[in-house]
């Protein structure tokens, strides 16, 4: 059962190793509901691993955590109902068309398949809806993944380098998605190398070599950027 708490994400000394290689080491992190947290750090810092642990795609090697009030291990199915992960891989079927991919995603997430066409229009792919994804560029694939997030309103949006491969217009679509989520009181955990996006966040968290290295409040973030 969910707790009546304000934390969207609450991690306690979470670690994750791949064989002998530690990717995330004893990370504790609190993200309040409605907060937009930007996670920064160099390649290999463990940001994507941490995001995938929060998404329940990976299990922690040790430590515990709750997402939207549900335990990371025992409440996986409940967490999955309430989140959307947009990661490096777009999770699309290459031999299906864009609209077939979205309709299948709608089926899996209990969303209305009739929203698929509108979602593709929203990301500027209305005219390519009936084309197979196999012929799409990386940027177009990323747009379809963004359209998938438009099918429903997840309580927690997990974005892992969502700007990779996107042109300026599509990058603005991501910005709009984050801003809309924030306005609606939903929570966003955003991993990006793009420092210009710090203004979207209420807090910036830096990760290096599997460890969190402090959090910067929104006011300081703005000051640093200035």
């Amino acid at each position, binding site marked *: 059962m969910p707790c009546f708490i304000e934390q969207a994400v609450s991690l306690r000394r979470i670690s994750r190793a791949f064989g002998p290689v530690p990717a995330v080491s004893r990370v504790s992190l609190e993200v309040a509901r409605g907060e937009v947290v930007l996670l920064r750090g160099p390649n290999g810092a463990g940001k994507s691993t941490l995001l995938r642990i929060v*998404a329940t*795609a990976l299990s922690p090697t040790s430590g515990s955590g709750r997402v939207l009030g549900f335990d990371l291990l025992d409440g996986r199915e409940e967490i999955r109902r309430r989140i959307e992960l947009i990661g490096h*891989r*777009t*999770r*699309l*079927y*290459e031999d299906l068309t864009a609209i*077939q991919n979205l309709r299948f995603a709608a*089926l899996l997430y209990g969303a209305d398949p009739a929203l698929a066409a509108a979602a593709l229009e929203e990301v500027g792919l209305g005219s390519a809806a009936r084309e197979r994804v196999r012929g799409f560029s990386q940027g177009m694939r990323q747009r379809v993944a963004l359209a998938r997030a438009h099918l429903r309103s997840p309580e927690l949006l997990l974005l892992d380098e969502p700007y990779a491969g996107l042109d300026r217009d599509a990058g603005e679509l991501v910005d709009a998605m984050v801003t809309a989520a924030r306005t609606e009181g939903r929570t966003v955990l955003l991993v990006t190398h793009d420092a210009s996006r710090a203004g979207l966040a209420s807090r910036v968290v830096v990760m290096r070599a599997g460890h969190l290295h402090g959090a910067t409040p929104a006011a300081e973030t703005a000051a640093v950027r200035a």
Partner: protein
Amino acid sequence: MSFARVALGVALKDLRIELGGRYAAGTVLPFACTQLVAFGLSLGPGRSLLEETAPALLWIAVLFAAVLAFRGAYEAEGDDGALEGLLLAPVDKAAVFAGKAAAVMAQLVPLACVLALLTELLFGVGPHGGLPALLATVALGTAGLAAVGSLFGVLTEAAKAREAVFPLLVLPLTTPVLLAAIRATALIQAGSQAEAANWLGLLAAFDVVFLAAGAALFGHLIED
């Protein structure tokens, strides 16, 4: 989300991908036909030998074709992390397994029928009035193969050497299904349908075991 709706959705998705890529029509069917013709030619014109070996040749051709179909079913999941999408979907994973097994079976049944027809044309052995029993054998045999292949296909998707690992895991487990299907087919072709019914019962029992095991284990296998 109902079990049946998810299973149907997954099955239709896999069949759409199959139709789009035409893997079965383009690869599996020519491979299985060539194999049957090659066996027929290598065994020579001796009629009794062909009659005795025809059921085994038919089912070995179906098995080899099935191995290719299983791999095709999971290659699409590995293309761009799609399997993670199934993992993160808040649906009963047993329904996903059922859908994937149903899609493989839907590909194997017509393939096995074509191969059975080819066996009759090449080797002169047919169901001899036992067509419903032969169709039941095809349905039960392909269901068992589809269950084993769909369960272990997901396991090998993550393996680095999946081309080597998959047959090593799947082929031994399909042996009981294969033996029962071969015996049932041989008895039907010999006109002993009452005896074939015993083997069909055994095939049905194998199917229940493998489908139940798949439904119970699939979710655990795709979790990290």
